[in-house]
């Protein structure tokens, strides 16, 4: 094993550690939402600092790799992809924090009918599934698995498109439901953004291994 291989392996370990933390942030945000667990929501917000510091460390490691090893070809693509995946993961961390802030801004638990009407559970199921899939694609360098993400992300986009109508229907003529409805709509928008970030990560995995650019197509 040559030296750069050891550095790239270490970079992959750091990225995976950040990935697992961000994944748990998303899962905890979901539990906090459905169980109205406000302590758990506060924990997610507190953990965001750890996500940020991991992002800075990975950025710095990539910078060192560029400066000290002058990576080319697949090594170069790996470092470039890691830099972008790092940014995407940090944004997912921000979104998990944002969801928890919405939970805490409500004085009481979200109405069960709202949870049902908004299809939030279906959304969350997809988010958690594709986060795990894209992590496995990253670890196993499996671009075929990475490609399955795009189709699944469309489910999130569809639910998001329906969300305004679903929540408007839920609010109906009850102005007392407006604030909770709007807060919830923001959560849905954030989950849809998580899907976009995961899609970006899948694109980076494909770029890294196949040198194919899938962006803006």
């Amino acid at each position: 094993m040559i030296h750069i291989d050891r550095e790239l392996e270490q970079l992959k370990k750091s990225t995976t550690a950040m990935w697992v933390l961000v994944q748990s942030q998303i899962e905890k945000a979901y539990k906090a939402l459905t169980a109205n667990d406000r302590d758990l929501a506060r924990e997610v917000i507190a953990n965001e600092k750890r996500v940020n510091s991991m992002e800075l460390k990975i950025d710095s490691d990539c910078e060192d790799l560029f400066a000290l090893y002058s990576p080319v070809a697949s090594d170069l693509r790996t470092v470039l992809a890691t830099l972008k995946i790092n940014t995407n993961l940090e944004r997912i961390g921000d979104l998990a924090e944002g969801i928890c802030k919405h939970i805490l801004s409500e004085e009481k638990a979200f109405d069960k009918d709202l949870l049902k009407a908004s299809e939030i559970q279906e959304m969350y199921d997809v988010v958690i599934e594709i986060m795990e899939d894209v992590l496995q694609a990253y670890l196993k360098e499996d671009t075929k698995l990475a490609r399955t993400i795009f189709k699944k992300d469309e489910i999130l986009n569809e639910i998001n498109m329906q969300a305004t109508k679903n929540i408007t229907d839920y609010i109906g003529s009850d102005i007392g439901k407006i604030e909770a409805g709007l807060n919830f709509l923001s959560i849905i928008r954030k989950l849809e953004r998580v899907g976009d970030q995961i899609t970006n990560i899948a694109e980076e995995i494909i770029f890294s291994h196949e040198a194919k650019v899938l962006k803006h197509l």
Partner: protein
Amino acid sequence: MVQKNKSVKKELNPEYKLESRNLNLFYGPKQALRDVSIKMSANTVTAFIGPSGCGKSTFLRCFNRMNDLIEGVRIEGDVLIDNVDIYKNEIDVYEYRKKVGMVFQKPNPFPKSIFENVAFGLRINGEKSKSYIEDTVEDALKQAALWNEVKDSLYKSAMAISGGQQQRLCIARAIAVKPSVLLMDEPASALDPLSTTKIEELIHTLKDNFTIVIVTHNMQQAARISDKTAYFYMGELIEYDLTEKIFTNPSRIETENYITGRFG
């Protein structure tokens, strides 16, 4: 979802200056080059890379027939400059070598003054005009980015200037006789980083007037200065493509392994 391959595009001069067709070269029983075919555009920089003994320097020397001087060498195939086969019998080798300047790994100035080093080629070509020689020496030293450093000491010994300056002097000497091709065999490998940068900058500016071929062991140097890169291994041309392509997404796994340092 549609996908596209990472594309690298670059417009190069459509005229080919240097070419080889099915070139085989033998040192006695040992085959050093195997069926090498390549076309190099005018006014471009081409880098030859590959491990020691891969044949890249041998191939470079084919373009000024320097291998002719080695005993037991046998060459098959064609080597063309400006579409003329330079190995054809009727070719005047000395005339053709004027078209091709060469710079070596170690600076090799003559033990003469700076001025006489640059004027040397002109004088042996029979140039008598003092003013022409003076103007040409000044032009060549300017082109080699050395003029400002030596203009007040032109009659000082060339052996007294630094290694980096000596190498630029050798480039000035090579271009004074107005060749159209410059062959460089690891021209910066014996120089410090600052002198290396100067040589690389010089190569960038010289390609407006010359077709340059450079052999280098320094991957980053090949990446920085060349338009196209050719990877050689065991006498074969494995891959030849735009430098951006070679260093971001080479087509051959052998090239990838070599440039990323995983070769062997």
